[in-house]
């Protein structure tokens, strides 16, 4: 479904992404594990086309089409979406508005169930604004609900667990699995091995490059043993 080939990004003369290759299959939850500063959010931005990031080399192929030069809207219309690590707040936009505009046509009457899937009571949240009155954790779960409502072909989730407490984390993981049951492929970007437990495969990112891909348990263990103790920050020894 998604094939990233030799992707490169240079910003101000610095190489941020260095020949990254990645394959995400149809119906796959693919985790990307990486320490801070390895390029995780940059990959999310490059695939979604956000933050004015445009690759300086390589290709991003989605369902056989090179999407590297498409706008964010055009990528979304092809079925890709992104849940931000720190989602935006929009004054005057209610949770109901947000989920409605995310949902497919004809399904806006079912939006309440997407809130329930991430453990939020619709009566308590539907008419609230997506503004500073929501906590970071609440906003993150609403972001997840809006992705669920969209039924994307590919959901990019950037650090979905950051700001989420331990009580809400299982609900969030359940939301990711539900997304997958609905038919979405998921690119799950995180620094937490716990979150990658729901993935089918996991890749390890270092210095803007995938250095290993494999089964979640083994790859997470490898990450723990090697990356968490690695003194070569952004200089892979492997």
């Amino acid at each position, binding site marked *: 479904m998604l094939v990233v080939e030799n992707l490169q990004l240079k910003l101000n003369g610095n190489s941020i992404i260095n020949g990254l290759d990645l394959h995400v299959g149809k119906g796959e939850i693919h985790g990307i594990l990486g320490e801070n500063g390895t390029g995780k959010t940059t990959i999310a931005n490059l695939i979604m086309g956000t*933050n004015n990031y445009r690759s300086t080399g390589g290709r991003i192929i989605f369902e056989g089409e090179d999407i590297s030069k498409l*706008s964010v*809207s055009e990528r979304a*219309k092809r079925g890709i979406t*992104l849940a931000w690590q720190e989602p*935006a707040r*929009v004054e*005057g936009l209610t949770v109901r508005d947000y989920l409605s*505009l995310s949902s497919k046509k004809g399904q806006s009457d079912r939006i309440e169930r997407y809130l329930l899937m991430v453990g939020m009571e619709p009566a308590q949240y539907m008419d609230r604004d997506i503004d500073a009155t929501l906590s970071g954790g609440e906003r993150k779960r609403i972001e997840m609900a809006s992705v669920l409502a969209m039924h994307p072909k590919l959901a990019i989730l950037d650090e979905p667990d950051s700001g989420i407490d331990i009580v809400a984390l299982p609900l969030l993981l359940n939301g990711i699995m539900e997304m997958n049951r609905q038919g979405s492929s998921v690119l799950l970007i995180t620094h937490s091995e716990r979150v990658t437990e729901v993935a089918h495969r996991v890749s390890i990112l270092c210095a803007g490059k995938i250095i290993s891909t494999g089964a979640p348990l083994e790859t997470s263990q490898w990450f723990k043993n090697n990356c968490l103790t690695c003194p070569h920050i952004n200089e892979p020894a492997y």
Partner: protein
Amino acid sequence: MVRYSVEEEYKGMIDAYHKAGGDRRVLKSKDVAKLVVHENKVLANDGIKGLKIDTEETASGVSVNFTVEKGAKIERPVHLCFGLLPKEGLQEIIMKVDAQDDSEVSVVAHCIFPNAVRVIHKMDADINIGNNARFDYKETHYHGEDGGIEVIPKARVKVGKGGVWQSTFALSQGLVGRLDYDFEVFCQEKAVAELVVKAYGRGSDDIKILEKIYLEGKGARGMAKSRLVLSDKARAEVRGETYGNAPYARGHVDCMELVNGTEAVAVAIPIVSVTVDTAKVTHEAAIGSIDRKQVETLMARGLDENEAVDVIVRGILK
């Protein structure tokens, strides 16, 4: 100039209100207290128990005495509808409001100028909110796309002990034209005032907002809030002033102006003043472009860029 019969004027006002998104049943209902004025003619004046609306037609408009009797709690919102259907004209509304002690009322005012090419609409209001009285006032304007209108609302509001004044002025349908908004509120002990202005300036709209709150009584509270979005060559100047002149008074000035494009101009001038050491008045003013991350958040859900901007603007002005 085209002249209308009274029936045509009433029908025309209701139709224009409906086209602007209003519910025409409200203005037709006998159960709703309302005042409908076209140009200088009173087309409907339906009071309700506890509320008296006395009017006098003048050469250029209408003089209105609006009295909410002591202790009266008016359950359903009172609707005021002012407007001009012709392309040219002047409408001056002189308003005296007396919300007596312990009364409560919510007033929704619709100002309708769908065909304005050279129209002036002035309101001069002297408003007295009694002790422990509550007055909610929402004024929404519906203008056409010619922008040939000057809107000049001025109000001086006195809020008695424990009274509450909340007003919202919204102008986001059609071109603004020239707006010169000037409201000042004087709050006595434990009184509360909240002034909100929302406007969407486009074309060559010229917007001036002056919100002044004087916190004169102990524990009085006030907020002057404005939300403006400017596109094309629109200009806006917002002055939010709050004066904390009594012990434990609390005030806040909150101004946000978003500029969409390169030719619109936004100016914000907040003034906060405190003359008593236990009073506190704060302000925040932000002028900038529409947040790119907000736009991209909505684009990532499939909206085009213009649609995303429109959703954000409508949210700010809601």
